[in-house]
């Protein structure tokens, strides 16, 4: 085999391989959305986070503005402390509320942010005060049955 032909083929092979890697990296995958350098973290406390997982999206008006960075259990208040990593491009008022929502009927859970009206914005390590827990299906059914039972009580 001629040496230049061989070099040419190997060169083509390497270029094709790197092109495939680039295709996978750019077209198929996305880098973990928010990098640590251009993001800030805020904390939200929930009574019940349902099936929320780390890396779940944080959405506002349906647009992904960040990801769930960390979920811990606070042993003093018995609440879940969820750390949200938000993109620096987006600033939210101090009285923004956070709710745990489900995409679709049985889809993954995400955090929805509803902006408030305060003129000051949330800074790094701030806390969201108004939160709404995840809807637990069992509780919902329980409430429904309890309500039905109440209706049946003779007055």
């Amino acid at each position, binding site marked *: 085999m001629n040496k230049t032909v*061989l070099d040419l083929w*190997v060169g*083509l092979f390497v270029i094709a391989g790197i092109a495939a890697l680039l295709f996978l990296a750019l077209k*198929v995958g996305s880098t973990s959305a928010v990098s640590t350098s251009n993001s800030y973290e805020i904390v939200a406390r929930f009574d019940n986070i349902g099936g929320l997982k780390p890396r779940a999206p944080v959405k506002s008006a349906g647009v992904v503005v960040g990801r769930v960075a960390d979920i811990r259990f606070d042993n003093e208040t018995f609440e879940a402390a969820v750390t949200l990593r938000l993109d620096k491009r987006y600033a939210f008022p101090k009285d923004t509320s956070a709710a745990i929502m489900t995409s679709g009927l049985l889809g993954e859970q995400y955090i929805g942010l509803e902006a408030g009206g305060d003129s000051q914005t949330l800074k790094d390590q701030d806390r969201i005060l108004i939160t709404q827990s995840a809807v637990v299906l069992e509780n919902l059914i329980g409430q429904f049955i309890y309500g039905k039972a109440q209706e049946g009580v003779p007055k």
Partner: protein
Amino acid sequence: MLKQSIENLGNRTIQGVWRIGFAARFFLAILLHSGTAFRRFGLTIREMYFTGVLSLIIILVSGLFVGMVLGLQGYETLQTYGSEEALGILVALSLVRELGPVVAALLFASRAGSAITAEIGLMKATEQLSAMEMMAVDPIARVVAPRFWAGVISMPLLAALFSAMGIFGGYLVGVQLIGVDEGAFWSQMESAVDFEQDILNGVIKSVVFGIAITTIALFEGYDAPPTAEGVSGATTRTVVTSSLVVLALDFILTAFMFRGLN
């Protein structure tokens, strides 16, 4: 009778441990003598032609067909839940995380690994390796190390090509043939596949498989009895052992990479 079988067991154990030790020393020797493979990179490029470029056809065609089958099967299953748009996620994640590295590694073992073993085994049987030693040329540096690095470099590239080709196959069947919405196919795929968690881990897997397969293939060739029968046996052992090792390593790596994810 009993003594005989206990002796057999002992003999096999000693043989096995000896081979593992020899393989480990062989691996270290390859790493120590890798200088030549990089200083005279032409040697490595030559081997990359045989291990990488000549494996392209089987890798690309299998990737395309695996992707097309994933597209068809995935659509059938997802359709029952009314979430056909998730087809892109299914095809991309299964290829990038598992099928790409593993199937490419299995094909690589049977296409390139067996060729390496047969070549080195024959070189040894025809005493070419001894002749090199006589001429003060280190056969590990001159013959073995370039093949090792060629395999280690080629394997991740082949796995990436396999995955890319598979996703293209899934796109062909899912979007062009069945008619899943094109925008949803790509955007859902992009939002679900994470670069570090999925793609980088797939690349790490394929590098590890490349190291394992080429080391096994080179070792089996180097260790083969210098007879026609010995070389053929070593070639078979290369394919069987490296396939089993790839599957076992895949389980271990997957357990480490994706255990703490959720």
